[in-house]
């Protein structure tokens, strides 16, 4: 017979204000097997844990039930407490009477009754618990960073700095991401390239960092400490080792009509190109959709002109397989498509541009070499109107329900830069709210208004239309309670940002959870913001939620710290709650092996005695406990009930259900 201790936590007033904790402790004391039942204000505090430790020793307890918050919060704490008092940590059960009881109920009597039932069910489960011991698995001391924007770059640099090897996998031909396209950065107005490109060069020169550009993650297998990843290195038709980045091929290429992605399609580029002057690696790439040689076999000019024979039209995609201990997702963002916002005329008028396009128009390396001109006639705009919240904070279904967070600041930046460089230009900004929390942020925005005379109009734009060669911006001025029409030369839309479209595929591959807006979910919104709930997967940058550069860099470094913490370990304690198969019941059907996301199940041929001296050779499932993560998928798929999960056996779950249903 087990000797069980029950410990009911008040959680200050979190539990105690809706649940009669004393009554719960009293009633549960009468349960068969329970020898001691206590209640205390904060069970997780040092004193609370001492109370548990003393009770375990004094009453020779064989198992404990803690009625407290969610096991996600403090199960690990109480397991450690039990272990330090000499009890097996898996002889601890948590009854969640906070999240699943006190926080969601108002009636004290009913909540108390429910808390008692939850306690009983935990006791019923505990009676079937068996002490478990965890195995160990080795850690591959190498990290994978998916995405080579500023987030991925910073994470990779920090991980490499600690002495671990890192691979950056980037889909485009260069690292740098969105930040490389920006002109200046707020709130200090230093040039984006000046602060980003040294970091890119650091990555390229760091011996610990391997940059795989023009590459995509193809598949991910394994688990924390032991991921096996396949990476597709797309054919760039240029030998990376030979190409010197001289750019001669770009001059000679006759097919020059490709849209220049780096300049947001505002100008064209040849079929063979280097995305921008400071690209890393500084190596050309051929667009196979555009190259005449690859399309119809006629041309080959670039190969003729190349001094180092780097062009290779026969190059094929290559699959690289590598092992990693940790994976950082840093897939970033893109501005939303504006097809649902015809009222602003983006698809109709050339001089209605997005903010990212404006960055290129203002950038010295952009299509107009930093001279701000309108795309339609290349004339300097004299009146520029900005529209904020285009698709942000939109619950109508056209846009995104969240605030994109960066637009208020970059719009203030654009307005200020324009007024600084072209003082005779009139700048108007339509806004709903100006949101500028952050160090020196509000001061920055106020400078745009007070020092640079930018006209901020509180209200939204209803429509943009053309009249006499002007873009008429009609909107509400809510402060003056009037409708205004501003004849403008250039209209700039602060389009909402959304996670990169690749993130869904990546999230599925690494089994990381994702929210309704396709942002990756963190393990805990406040206390574990850079980790995914899936062990070994870490989040860096905008893939987790909208953020600006300073915040992205902070988060990228935080993420690296977590990765380093993991890679610094030689062995990881495995989960003790692993699956195992009852070989007498297993029919060898392979269903479990097919659903196992970790590849933990293999099949072995085993001899079984049938009696009367006869034997039978049967194929049965065998679980590798070092690989099994205890997800339980196999137990529910097994048609013969042979698979069971230690610590969560079918018998234990049924005992819990019985205890809940019994009155």
């Amino acid at each position, binding site marked *: 017979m087990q000797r069980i201790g029950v410990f009911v936590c008040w959680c200050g007033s979190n539990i105690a204000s809706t649940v009669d904790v004393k009554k719960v402790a009293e009633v549960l004391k009468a349960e068969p097997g329970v020898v001691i039942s206590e209640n205390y204000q904060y069970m997780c505090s040092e004193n609370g844990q001492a109370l548990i430790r003393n009770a375990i020793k004094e009453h020779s307890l064989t198992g404990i039930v803690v009625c407290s918050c969610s096991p996600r919060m403090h199960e690990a704490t109480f397991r450690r407490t039990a272990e330090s008092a000499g009890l097996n940590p898996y002889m601890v059960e948590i009854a969640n009477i906070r999240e699943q009881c006190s926080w969601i109920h108002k009636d004290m009597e009913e909540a108390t009754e429910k808390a008692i039932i939850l306690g009983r069910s935990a006791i019923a489960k505990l009676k079937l618990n068996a002490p478990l011991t965890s195995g160990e698995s080795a850690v591959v001391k190498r990290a994978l960073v998916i995405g080579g924007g500023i987030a991925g770059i910073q994470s990779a640099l920090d991980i490499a700095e600690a002495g671990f090897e890192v691979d950056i996998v980037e889909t485009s031909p260069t690292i740098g991401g969105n930040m490389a396209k920006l002109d200046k950065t707020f709130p200090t107005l230093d040039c984006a390239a000046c602060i980003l490109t040294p970091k890119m060069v650091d990555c390229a020169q760091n011996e610990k960092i391997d940059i795989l550009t023009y590459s995509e993650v193809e598949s991910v297998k394994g688990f924390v400490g032991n991921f096996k990843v396949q990476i597709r290195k797309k054919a760039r038709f240029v030998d990376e080792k030979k190409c010197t980045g001289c750019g001669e091929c770009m001059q000679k290429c006759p097919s020059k009509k490709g849209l220049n992605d780096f300049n947001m399609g505002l100008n064209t580029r040849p079929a063979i190109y280097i995305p921008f002057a400071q690209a890393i690696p500084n190596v050309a790439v051929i667009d196979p959709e555009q190259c005449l040689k690859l399309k119809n076999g006629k041309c080959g000019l670039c190969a003729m002109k190349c001094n180092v024979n780097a062009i290779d039209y026969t190059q094929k995609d290559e699959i690289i397989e590598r092992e990693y201990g940790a994976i950082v997702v840093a897939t970033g963002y893109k501005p939303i498509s504006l097809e649902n916002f015809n*009222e602003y005329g983006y698809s109709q008028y050339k001089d209605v541009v997005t903010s990212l396009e404006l960055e290129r128009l203002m950038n010295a390396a952009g299509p107009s070499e930093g001279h701000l001109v309108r795309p339609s006639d290349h004339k300097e705009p004299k009146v520029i109107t900005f529209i904020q*919240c285009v698709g942000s*904070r*939109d*619950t*109508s*279904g*056209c*846009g995104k329900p969240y605030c994109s967070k960066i637009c208020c600041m970059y719009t203030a930046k654009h307005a200020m830069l324009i007024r600084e460089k072209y003082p005779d230009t009139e700048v108007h900004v*339509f806004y*709903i709210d100006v949101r500028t929390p952050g160090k020196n942020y509000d001061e920055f925005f106020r400078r745009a208004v007070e020092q640079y005379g930018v006209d901020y109009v*509180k*209200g*939204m*734009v*209803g*429509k943009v239309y053309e009249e006499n060669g002007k873009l008429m911006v*009609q*909107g*509400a001025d*809510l402060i003056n*309670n009037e*409708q205004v029409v501003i004849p403008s030369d250039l209209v700039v839309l602060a389009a909402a940002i959304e996670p990169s479209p690749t993130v869904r595929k990546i999230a599925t591959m690494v089994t990381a959870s994702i929210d309704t807006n396709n942002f990756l979910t963190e393990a805990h919104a406040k206390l574990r913001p850079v980790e995914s709930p899936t062990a070994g997967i870490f989040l860096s940058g905008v893939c987790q939620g909208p953020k600006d550069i300073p915040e992205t860099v902070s988060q990228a470094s935080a993420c690296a710290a977590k990765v380093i913490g993991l890679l610094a370990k030689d062995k990881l304690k495995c989960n003790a709650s692993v699956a195992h198969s009852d070989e007498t019941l297993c029919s060898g059907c392979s269903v479990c092996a097919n659903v196992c996301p970790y590849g933990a199940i293999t099949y072995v041929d085993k001899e079984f005695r049938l009696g009367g001296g006869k034997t039978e050779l049967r194929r049965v499932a065998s679980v590798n406990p070092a690989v099994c993560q205890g997800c339980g998928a196999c137990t529910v798929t097994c048609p013969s009930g042979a698979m069971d999960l230690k610590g969560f056996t079918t018998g234990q779950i049924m005992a819990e259900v019985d205890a809940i249903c019994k009155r």
Partner: protein
Amino acid sequence: MDKLEQVKLVKERSGTDARKCMKCGKCSGRCPAYNEMDVKPHQFVSYIEKGDIDKLLNSKSLYTCLSCFACVERCPRGVAPANVIEAVRQEVIRVQGENKIQAEKVPEMIDETIPQQLLVSMFRKLNK
């Protein structure tokens, strides 16, 4: 009728939740009849949320709103200012049995650019 009751009725009939409004003013930014209105589309939403219905009942806007539903179409939060206006309009017509549009003047107002919604709304007014 009790004022509170009337506000409740208008809210109910409009089928719109004024609390969803984030006060961006896009409805008023888009409204083609804005300059003809004394109480603006965004104010209809704001007044009804505050329970101040008198200003709405006496407003000229009830007769100048085109019922073109541009405000409804453009609202980023799924609020429908035109529906509130229509609900208040019904309240006025029901109470007073009055009509400010003369049936014989309707044909000369019609041209092919007039939205169909407006005609329907106009006939609804004439019907009462």
